[in-house]
């Protein structure tokens, strides 16, 4: 780490559970953020500023005006730009000392697997179950830790899956056949800072995984209701018949 890095990250290094060693682990880490919406914008901002050495940011979409309240990496000048490219430009301004690699495409299974194989941690910040199932499958197959977050309305959820060989549960144990129509009937609005809350939690959990600190959310779903401030964490049992992490028949 450079002298300027020592100063920049001195408040991390001052934490006994992080220290210079933990900060070096962050510098050596490769993190993939899939989805640069409200969760991914916030999480990647904190990961970049926290000194993650290589940050891969993926989204095939472009910035539109409805994104601006919660997708805090973008400003009105970014309208119409690829989110990954606009985000990379912004993040490089915040932290010019790290590598930020924009991936402005839809990563199909094979490309995703190739990308994930090089990662220390993956953050799932996508907005649909199909993408979430694919990311979980790829992380499970490559034994990469996954931080999964979700937010809608006043609600947030977060879970951490380590994907150690032969271990469960995984995201598919949690949501096997979730009904996507539910969100239509309950409404698609979202309060901007609720996404930020979950995005910050995701960045925190990713940093803990990289540094080697234990997580209370491993194999558990944290659910948060911003209307009441209530939250709890619920254990996710491993499904015996899980097609992703279930034991082979």
């Amino acid at each position: 780490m450079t002298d300027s890095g020592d100063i920049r990250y001195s408040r991390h290094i001052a934490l006994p559970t992080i220290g210079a060693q933990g900060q070096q682990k962050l510098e050596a880490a490769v993190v993939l953020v899939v989805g640069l919406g409200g969760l991914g914008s916030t999480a990647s901002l904190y990961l970049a500023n926290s000194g993650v050495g290589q940050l891969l940011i993926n989204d095939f979409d472009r910035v539109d005006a409805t994104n601006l309240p919660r997708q805090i990496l973008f400003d009105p000048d970014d309208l119409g730009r690829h989110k990954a490219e606009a985000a990379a430009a912004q993040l490089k301004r915040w932290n010019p000392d790290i590598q930020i690699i924009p991936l402005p495409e839809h990563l199909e299974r094979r490309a995703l697997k190739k990308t994930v194989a090089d990662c220390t941690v993956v953050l799932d910040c996508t907005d649909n179950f199909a993408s979430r199932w694919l990311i979980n499958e790829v992380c499970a197959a490559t034994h990469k830790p996954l931080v999964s977050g979700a937010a809608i309305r006043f609600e947030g959820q977060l879970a951490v899956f380590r994907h150690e060989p032969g271990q469960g549960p995984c995201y598919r144990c949690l949501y096997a056949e979730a009904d996507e129509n539910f969100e239509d009937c309950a409404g698609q609005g979202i309060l901007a800072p609720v996404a930020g809350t979950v995005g910050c939690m995701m960045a925190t959990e990713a940093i803990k995984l990289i540094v080697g600190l234990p997580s209370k959310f491993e194999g558990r779903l944290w659910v948060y209701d911003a209307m009441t401030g209530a939250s709890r964490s619920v254990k996710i049992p491993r499904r015996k018949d899980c097609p992703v992490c279930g034991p082979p028949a």
Partner: protein
Amino acid sequence: MARRKLRIEYFAILRDRAGVDAEELDTEAGTPAELFAELSERYPFPEPGQLKVAVNDEFSDWQVSLADGDSVVFIPPVAGG
């Protein structure tokens, strides 16, 4: 029929619909499925197939037996990002 006292917590849309965060209920319902059916008579809840249920802070089957003092939480799925 055996009765049991349960603590029920409501998240998100269920809290909206029930109008309370949590309540204690003295009930004959023996499973989360029976409990949800009973609650659906009082509150305009969505179909249970769209929800997950946790008993004592662990996700559970809808047909598991409930015991006196159990805490039950119904949780809507969230995939938004």
